[in-house]
Protein backbone atom coordinates (compact mmCIF):
# COMPACT_ATOMS: atom_id res chain seq x y z
CA UNK A 1 0.00 0.00 0.00
CA UNK A 2 3.02 2.15 0.08
CA UNK A 3 4.52 2.74 -3.30
CA UNK A 4 7.80 4.42 -2.41
CA UNK A 5 11.08 4.72 -4.20
CA UNK A 6 14.65 5.60 -3.35
CA UNK A 7 16.16 8.60 -5.11
CA UNK A 8 19.11 11.00 -4.81
CA UNK A 9 18.76 14.45 -3.19
CA UNK A 10 19.91 17.11 -5.65
CA UNK A 11 18.97 20.29 -3.82
CA UNK A 12 17.62 21.23 -0.40
CA UNK A 13 15.47 24.32 -0.07
CA UNK A 14 14.26 24.80 3.52
CA UNK A 15 11.70 22.05 4.17
CA UNK A 16 11.57 21.05 0.52
CA UNK A 17 14.01 19.13 -1.62
CA UNK A 18 14.55 18.14 -5.22
CA UNK A 19 15.06 14.42 -5.57
CA UNK A 20 16.36 12.70 -8.68
CA UNK A 21 15.12 9.26 -9.74
CA UNK A 22 17.20 8.19 -12.74
CA UNK A 23 16.53 11.47 -14.51
CA UNK A 24 13.14 12.33 -13.00
CA UNK A 25 13.16 15.37 -10.73
CA UNK A 26 10.50 15.41 -8.06
CA UNK A 27 9.90 18.15 -5.57
CA UNK A 28 9.38 16.45 -2.21
CA UNK A 29 8.67 17.43 1.36
CA UNK A 30 11.79 17.20 3.49
CA UNK A 31 10.38 18.16 6.86
CA UNK A 32 10.51 14.70 8.40
CA UNK A 33 14.17 13.79 7.98
CA UNK A 34 17.50 15.65 8.12
CA UNK A 35 18.93 15.52 4.64
CA UNK A 36 21.69 16.99 2.52
CA UNK A 37 22.44 16.96 -1.21
CA UNK A 38 23.78 13.58 -2.27
CA UNK A 39 21.72 11.62 0.26
CA UNK A 40 19.87 8.54 -0.94
CA UNK A 41 16.28 8.91 0.31
CA UNK A 42 12.98 7.01 0.29
CA UNK A 43 10.09 9.07 -1.13
CA UNK A 44 6.37 8.25 -0.74
CA UNK A 45 3.56 10.38 -2.15
CA UNK A 46 5.83 13.39 -2.52
CA UNK A 47 7.36 13.11 0.95
CA UNK A 48 10.81 11.98 2.07
CA UNK A 49 10.33 9.30 4.72
CA UNK A 50 13.85 8.16 5.43
CA UNK A 51 17.49 8.46 4.49
CA UNK A 52 18.54 5.06 3.17
CA UNK A 53 21.91 3.73 4.17
CA UNK A 54 24.12 3.14 1.19
CA UNK A 55 26.31 0.27 2.29
CA UNK A 56 24.67 -2.88 1.24
CA UNK A 57 22.91 -3.37 4.55
CA UNK A 58 20.25 -5.22 2.67
CA UNK A 59 22.87 -7.75 1.70
CA UNK A 60 20.71 -10.80 1.40
CA UNK A 61 23.40 -13.33 2.19
CA UNK A 62 24.28 -11.54 5.43
CA UNK A 63 20.62 -11.41 6.43
CA UNK A 64 20.25 -15.06 5.49
CA UNK A 65 23.13 -15.98 7.79
CA UNK A 66 21.50 -13.99 10.60
CA UNK A 67 18.27 -15.94 10.18
CA UNK A 68 20.16 -19.21 10.25
CA UNK A 69 21.85 -18.19 13.48
CA UNK A 70 18.61 -17.45 15.34
Amino acid at each position, binding site marked *: *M*CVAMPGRVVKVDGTKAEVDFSGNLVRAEAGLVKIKPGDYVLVHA*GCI*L*QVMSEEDS*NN*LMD*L*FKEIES*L
Partner: protein
Amino acid sequence: MTEYQAYLKNYDGEPVRLMEVCGTHTAEISHSGIASVLSPNIRLISGPGCPVCVTVTSYIDRLVALSLEPNHVVVSFGDLLRVKGSSQSLNDAKALGGQVRMVYSPMDVLKLADAEPEQIFVFAAVGFETTTPVYALLLEEAQKTGIQNIRLLTSLKTMPPVIDWVCANQGGIDGFLAPGHVSVITGSSMFEPLAQTYSIPFAVSGFEPQQILLSIYALVRRRGKGDVMNLYPSAVTAEGNKAAQRVVNQYFESCDAAWRGMGVIAESGMCLRAEYAEFDAGSMNLTDDRSANPNCRCAKVLTGAISPHECPLFGSQCTPQIPQGACMVSTEGSCYQYYVNHRK
Protein backbone atom coordinates in the same frame (compact mmCIF):
# COMPACT_ATOMS: atom_id res chain seq x y z
CA MET B 1 19.16 -20.14 -7.41
CA THR B 2 20.02 -19.15 -3.85
CA GLU B 3 19.92 -21.58 -0.96
CA TYR B 4 16.74 -20.08 0.45
CA GLN B 5 15.00 -20.11 -2.95
CA ALA B 6 15.81 -23.79 -3.35
CA TYR B 7 14.56 -24.48 0.18
CA LEU B 8 11.25 -22.76 -0.53
CA LYS B 9 10.77 -24.56 -3.82
CA ASN B 10 11.44 -27.97 -2.34
CA TYR B 11 9.78 -27.47 1.05
CA ASP B 12 7.70 -30.48 1.93
CA GLY B 13 7.16 -29.87 5.62
CA GLU B 14 3.93 -29.02 7.42
CA PRO B 15 1.69 -26.74 5.31
CA VAL B 16 2.38 -23.11 6.17
CA ARG B 17 0.00 -20.17 5.76
CA LEU B 18 1.63 -16.76 5.53
CA MET B 19 -0.15 -13.45 5.30
CA GLU B 20 1.10 -10.21 3.80
CA VAL B 21 -0.62 -7.09 5.10
CA CYS B 22 0.59 -4.56 2.61
CA GLY B 23 -1.04 -4.00 -0.74
CA THR B 24 2.29 -3.12 -2.30
CA HIS B 25 3.67 -6.50 -1.17
CA THR B 26 0.62 -8.18 -2.73
CA ALA B 27 1.30 -6.40 -6.00
CA GLU B 28 5.01 -7.25 -6.01
CA ILE B 29 4.32 -10.89 -5.14
CA SER B 30 2.03 -11.14 -8.15
CA HIS B 31 4.32 -9.12 -10.37
CA SER B 32 7.30 -11.37 -9.68
CA GLY B 33 5.33 -14.59 -9.88
CA ILE B 34 6.48 -15.52 -6.38
CA ALA B 35 3.67 -17.99 -5.77
CA SER B 36 4.90 -19.92 -8.82
CA VAL B 37 8.35 -20.53 -7.28
CA LEU B 38 7.12 -21.73 -3.89
CA SER B 39 6.33 -25.26 -2.80
CA PRO B 40 2.56 -25.89 -2.81
CA ASN B 41 2.88 -26.41 0.98
CA ILE B 42 3.52 -22.70 1.40
CA ARG B 43 0.37 -20.66 0.94
CA LEU B 44 0.42 -16.88 0.66
CA ILE B 45 -2.71 -15.08 1.77
CA SER B 46 -3.43 -11.42 1.18
CA GLY B 47 -4.58 -9.67 4.31
CA PRO B 48 -6.35 -6.35 4.89
CA GLY B 49 -3.35 -4.26 3.89
CA CYS B 50 -4.80 -2.31 1.03
CA PRO B 51 -6.36 0.91 2.34
CA VAL B 52 -8.58 1.14 -0.69
CA CYS B 53 -9.94 -2.38 -0.13
CA VAL B 54 -10.82 -1.75 3.51
CA THR B 55 -12.57 1.57 3.02
CA VAL B 56 -16.27 1.32 3.92
CA THR B 57 -18.95 2.12 1.40
CA SER B 58 -20.33 5.11 3.33
CA TYR B 59 -16.94 6.82 3.00
CA ILE B 60 -17.08 6.54 -0.77
CA ASP B 61 -20.73 7.65 -0.73
CA ARG B 62 -19.74 10.80 1.17
CA LEU B 63 -16.96 11.55 -1.33
CA VAL B 64 -19.33 11.06 -4.23
CA ALA B 65 -21.87 13.40 -2.62
CA LEU B 66 -19.18 16.01 -1.94
CA SER B 67 -17.91 15.89 -5.52
CA LEU B 68 -21.39 16.70 -6.76
CA GLU B 69 -21.86 19.65 -4.40
CA PRO B 70 -21.38 23.05 -5.99
CA ASN B 71 -17.92 24.58 -5.41
CA HIS B 72 -16.52 21.36 -4.02
CA VAL B 73 -13.68 19.45 -5.61
CA VAL B 74 -12.70 15.98 -4.43
CA VAL B 75 -8.97 15.31 -4.80
CA SER B 76 -7.74 11.75 -4.64
CA PHE B 77 -5.05 9.23 -5.42
CA GLY B 78 -5.72 7.16 -8.53
CA ASP B 79 -6.34 3.98 -6.54
CA LEU B 80 -9.65 5.15 -5.10
CA LEU B 81 -11.41 6.40 -8.18
CA ARG B 82 -12.88 3.07 -9.32
CA VAL B 83 -14.10 1.82 -5.95
CA LYS B 84 -17.87 1.78 -5.63
CA GLY B 85 -19.65 2.91 -2.51
CA SER B 86 -23.16 1.56 -1.99
CA SER B 87 -23.80 2.25 -5.67
CA GLN B 88 -21.34 4.68 -7.28
CA SER B 89 -17.66 5.41 -7.55
CA LEU B 90 -15.86 8.74 -7.97
CA ASN B 91 -15.41 7.90 -11.66
CA ASP B 92 -19.17 7.52 -11.93
CA ALA B 93 -19.60 10.86 -10.15
CA LYS B 94 -17.21 12.48 -12.63
CA ALA B 95 -19.31 11.24 -15.52
CA LEU B 96 -22.33 12.87 -13.84
CA GLY B 97 -20.52 16.21 -13.68
CA GLY B 98 -18.90 15.84 -10.26
CA GLN B 99 -15.57 17.59 -9.73
CA VAL B 100 -12.88 14.97 -9.13
CA ARG B 101 -9.14 15.47 -9.60
CA MET B 102 -6.29 13.02 -9.27
CA VAL B 103 -2.90 13.89 -7.78
CA TYR B 104 0.39 12.13 -7.03
CA SER B 105 0.96 13.78 -3.67
CA PRO B 106 -1.42 15.28 -1.07
CA MET B 107 0.87 18.33 -1.11
CA ASP B 108 -0.32 19.02 -4.68
CA VAL B 109 -3.69 20.09 -3.28
CA LEU B 110 -2.10 23.24 -1.80
CA LYS B 111 -1.45 24.66 -5.25
CA LEU B 112 -4.93 23.73 -6.42
CA ALA B 113 -6.59 25.34 -3.39
CA ASP B 114 -4.52 28.48 -3.71
CA ALA B 115 -5.43 28.89 -7.38
CA GLU B 116 -9.17 28.51 -6.80
CA PRO B 117 -10.03 30.08 -3.43
CA GLU B 118 -13.75 29.99 -4.14
CA GLN B 119 -13.79 26.20 -4.19
CA ILE B 120 -13.48 23.82 -1.26
CA PHE B 121 -10.93 21.08 -1.94
CA VAL B 122 -11.64 17.86 -0.08
CA PHE B 123 -8.79 15.38 -0.05
CA ALA B 124 -9.77 11.70 0.14
CA ALA B 125 -7.32 10.98 2.94
CA VAL B 126 -6.93 7.22 2.97
CA GLY B 127 -3.84 5.35 4.03
CA PHE B 128 -1.92 3.58 6.70
CA GLU B 129 0.92 4.77 8.89
CA THR B 130 3.11 5.47 5.86
CA THR B 131 0.82 8.11 4.42
CA THR B 132 -0.64 9.73 7.56
CA PRO B 133 2.51 11.83 8.13
CA VAL B 134 2.09 13.32 4.66
CA TYR B 135 -1.43 14.51 5.55
CA ALA B 136 -0.06 16.01 8.77
CA LEU B 137 2.55 17.92 6.76
CA LEU B 138 -0.19 19.09 4.41
CA LEU B 139 -2.15 20.60 7.30
CA GLU B 140 0.99 22.11 8.78
CA GLU B 141 1.70 23.81 5.47
CA ALA B 142 -1.93 24.91 5.05
CA GLN B 143 -1.83 26.57 8.46
CA LYS B 144 1.53 28.20 7.77
CA THR B 145 0.37 29.69 4.47
CA GLY B 146 -3.11 30.58 5.66
CA ILE B 147 -4.92 28.46 3.05
CA GLN B 148 -8.44 27.90 4.35
CA ASN B 149 -10.20 25.99 1.61
CA ILE B 150 -8.70 22.56 2.18
CA ARG B 151 -10.50 19.76 4.01
CA LEU B 152 -9.71 16.14 4.70
CA LEU B 153 -12.20 13.30 4.62
CA THR B 154 -10.22 10.74 6.56
CA SER B 155 -10.19 6.96 6.42
CA LEU B 156 -6.82 6.47 8.08
CA LYS B 157 -6.01 3.13 9.59
CA THR B 158 -3.28 1.51 11.66
CA MET B 159 -1.89 -1.99 11.31
CA PRO B 160 -1.51 -3.58 14.74
CA PRO B 161 -5.23 -3.58 15.70
CA VAL B 162 -6.30 -5.25 12.47
CA ILE B 163 -3.53 -7.82 12.65
CA ASP B 164 -4.66 -8.48 16.20
CA TRP B 165 -8.24 -8.85 14.94
CA VAL B 166 -7.18 -11.42 12.36
CA CYS B 167 -5.20 -13.41 14.93
CA ALA B 168 -7.93 -13.25 17.55
CA ASN B 169 -10.95 -13.83 15.32
CA GLN B 170 -9.61 -16.01 12.61
CA GLY B 171 -6.27 -17.53 13.41
CA GLY B 172 -4.70 -20.02 11.08
CA ILE B 173 -1.84 -17.70 10.14
CA ASP B 174 1.68 -19.02 10.75
CA GLY B 175 3.63 -15.86 9.90
CA PHE B 176 3.23 -12.27 8.79
CA LEU B 177 5.13 -10.47 6.08
CA ALA B 178 5.22 -7.11 7.83
CA PRO B 179 4.76 -3.94 5.80
CA GLY B 180 8.15 -2.44 4.97
CA HIS B 181 7.21 1.20 4.49
CA VAL B 182 4.77 1.36 7.39
CA SER B 183 7.71 0.13 9.49
CA VAL B 184 9.92 2.96 8.23
CA ILE B 185 7.59 5.32 10.08
CA THR B 186 6.54 3.24 13.08
CA GLY B 187 9.65 1.16 13.64
CA SER B 188 9.78 -2.63 13.50
CA SER B 189 9.37 -2.88 17.26
CA MET B 190 5.68 -2.04 16.78
CA PHE B 191 5.06 -5.69 15.92
CA GLU B 192 6.74 -7.16 18.99
CA PRO B 193 3.67 -7.25 21.27
CA LEU B 194 1.69 -9.10 18.58
CA ALA B 195 4.50 -11.51 17.82
CA GLN B 196 4.85 -12.35 21.49
CA THR B 197 1.14 -12.58 22.30
CA TYR B 198 0.44 -15.02 19.51
CA SER B 199 3.89 -16.63 19.10
CA ILE B 200 3.83 -15.83 15.42
CA PRO B 201 6.93 -14.56 13.56
CA PHE B 202 6.92 -11.22 11.70
CA ALA B 203 9.40 -10.48 8.93
CA VAL B 204 9.68 -6.80 7.98
CA SER B 205 10.32 -7.04 4.29
CA GLY B 206 11.50 -4.78 1.50
CA PHE B 207 9.84 -4.82 -1.89
CA GLU B 208 12.35 -6.47 -4.19
CA PRO B 209 11.39 -10.04 -5.07
CA GLN B 210 14.57 -11.44 -3.50
CA GLN B 211 13.84 -9.58 -0.28
CA ILE B 212 10.31 -10.99 -0.20
CA LEU B 213 11.58 -14.52 -0.83
CA LEU B 214 14.08 -14.18 2.01
CA SER B 215 11.32 -12.94 4.29
CA ILE B 216 9.12 -15.89 3.39
CA TYR B 217 12.07 -18.15 4.15
CA ALA B 218 12.56 -16.51 7.54
CA LEU B 219 8.88 -16.98 8.42
CA VAL B 220 8.89 -20.65 7.47
CA ARG B 221 12.07 -21.28 9.45
CA ARG B 222 10.92 -19.37 12.54
CA ARG B 223 7.42 -20.76 12.61
CA GLY B 224 5.96 -20.93 16.09
CA LYS B 225 8.44 -18.36 17.45
CA GLY B 226 7.39 -14.82 18.32
CA ASP B 227 10.32 -13.17 16.50
CA VAL B 228 10.22 -9.82 14.76
CA MET B 229 12.94 -9.85 12.10
CA ASN B 230 13.96 -6.65 10.35
CA LEU B 231 14.99 -7.76 6.87
CA TYR B 232 14.91 -4.23 5.43
CA PRO B 233 17.58 -2.55 7.56
CA SER B 234 18.56 0.04 4.95
CA ALA B 235 15.26 1.82 5.57
CA VAL B 236 13.75 0.40 8.76
CA THR B 237 14.94 0.82 12.33
CA ALA B 238 13.44 -0.51 15.54
CA GLU B 239 12.12 2.91 16.61
CA GLY B 240 11.12 4.34 13.25
CA ASN B 241 10.93 8.00 12.21
CA LYS B 242 10.35 10.02 15.37
CA ALA B 243 9.79 13.31 13.58
CA ALA B 244 7.02 11.71 11.52
CA GLN B 245 5.45 10.18 14.62
CA ARG B 246 5.51 13.58 16.35
CA VAL B 247 3.81 15.47 13.55
CA VAL B 248 1.17 12.75 13.23
CA ASN B 249 0.41 12.98 16.95
CA GLN B 250 0.12 16.72 16.71
CA TYR B 251 -2.73 16.60 14.20
CA PHE B 252 -4.29 13.18 14.70
CA GLU B 253 -5.32 10.90 17.50
CA SER B 254 -6.28 7.28 17.68
CA CYS B 255 -9.99 6.48 17.24
CA ASP B 256 -12.26 3.59 16.42
CA ALA B 257 -12.48 2.83 12.72
CA ALA B 258 -14.73 0.83 10.44
CA TRP B 259 -13.09 -1.70 8.16
CA ARG B 260 -14.88 -2.96 5.08
CA GLY B 261 -16.35 -6.30 5.93
CA MET B 262 -14.94 -6.41 9.48
CA GLY B 263 -17.01 -3.85 11.26
CA VAL B 264 -15.59 -1.39 13.76
CA ILE B 265 -12.23 -2.25 15.29
CA ALA B 266 -11.38 -0.27 18.42
CA GLU B 267 -8.51 2.23 18.23
CA SER B 268 -7.62 1.13 14.72
CA GLY B 269 -7.92 4.47 13.01
CA MET B 270 -6.54 7.98 13.13
CA CYS B 271 -8.82 11.01 13.25
CA LEU B 272 -8.24 14.74 13.31
CA ARG B 273 -7.90 16.15 16.79
CA ALA B 274 -10.78 18.38 17.91
CA GLU B 275 -8.67 21.54 17.63
CA TYR B 276 -8.27 20.89 13.88
CA ALA B 277 -11.96 20.27 13.23
CA GLU B 278 -11.99 23.12 10.71
CA PHE B 279 -10.07 20.83 8.36
CA ASP B 280 -12.52 17.96 8.66
CA ALA B 281 -15.03 17.30 5.88
CA GLY B 282 -17.24 15.13 8.10
CA SER B 283 -15.13 12.03 8.67
CA MET B 284 -16.84 10.87 11.88
CA ASN B 285 -19.50 8.20 11.93
CA LEU B 286 -18.82 6.92 8.46
CA THR B 287 -19.23 3.35 9.57
CA ASP B 288 -22.04 2.14 7.39
CA ASP B 289 -20.83 -0.59 5.11
CA ARG B 290 -23.27 -1.87 2.58
CA SER B 291 -22.01 -3.65 -0.45
CA ALA B 292 -24.20 -3.09 -3.47
CA ASN B 293 -24.36 -6.86 -3.63
CA PRO B 294 -25.47 -8.68 -0.45
CA ASN B 295 -23.70 -11.86 -1.58
CA CYS B 296 -20.30 -10.19 -1.70
CA ARG B 297 -17.86 -12.06 0.54
CA CYS B 298 -15.05 -9.48 0.57
CA ALA B 299 -15.02 -9.47 4.35
CA LYS B 300 -14.01 -13.12 4.53
CA VAL B 301 -11.58 -12.85 1.64
CA LEU B 302 -9.89 -9.77 3.12
CA THR B 303 -9.07 -11.57 6.33
CA GLY B 304 -7.93 -14.71 4.59
CA ALA B 305 -10.82 -16.76 5.96
CA ILE B 306 -11.82 -17.94 2.51
CA SER B 307 -10.09 -17.94 -0.83
CA PRO B 308 -11.69 -15.87 -3.62
CA HIS B 309 -12.89 -19.10 -5.23
CA GLU B 310 -15.12 -19.72 -2.26
CA CYS B 311 -17.10 -16.55 -2.89
CA PRO B 312 -20.27 -17.38 -4.86
CA LEU B 313 -19.87 -14.31 -7.05
CA PHE B 314 -16.22 -14.82 -8.00
CA GLY B 315 -15.64 -15.05 -11.73
CA SER B 316 -19.32 -15.08 -12.61
CA GLN B 317 -21.08 -12.02 -11.26
CA CYS B 318 -17.92 -10.43 -10.00
CA THR B 319 -14.99 -9.81 -12.35
CA PRO B 320 -12.59 -6.90 -12.80
CA GLN B 321 -15.00 -5.45 -15.34
CA ILE B 322 -18.03 -5.70 -13.05
CA PRO B 323 -16.47 -5.70 -9.57
CA GLN B 324 -18.92 -6.19 -6.72
CA GLY B 325 -16.54 -5.50 -3.86
CA ALA B 326 -13.25 -3.82 -3.10
CA CYS B 327 -11.29 -7.09 -3.36
CA MET B 328 -11.99 -7.12 -7.07
CA VAL B 329 -11.77 -3.39 -7.76
CA SER B 330 -8.33 -2.81 -6.40
CA THR B 331 -5.44 -4.14 -8.45
CA GLU B 332 -4.07 -5.33 -5.11
CA GLY B 333 -7.23 -7.01 -3.95
CA SER B 334 -7.07 -10.78 -3.55
CA CYS B 335 -9.94 -11.40 -5.91
CA TYR B 336 -8.47 -9.25 -8.65
CA GLN B 337 -5.09 -10.99 -8.31
CA TYR B 338 -6.63 -14.45 -8.28
CA TYR B 339 -8.80 -13.66 -11.28
CA VAL B 340 -6.17 -12.18 -13.57
CA ASN B 341 -3.51 -14.69 -12.59
CA HIS B 342 -5.86 -17.66 -12.85
CA ARG B 343 -4.74 -18.67 -9.37
CA LYS B 344 -6.29 -21.82 -7.97
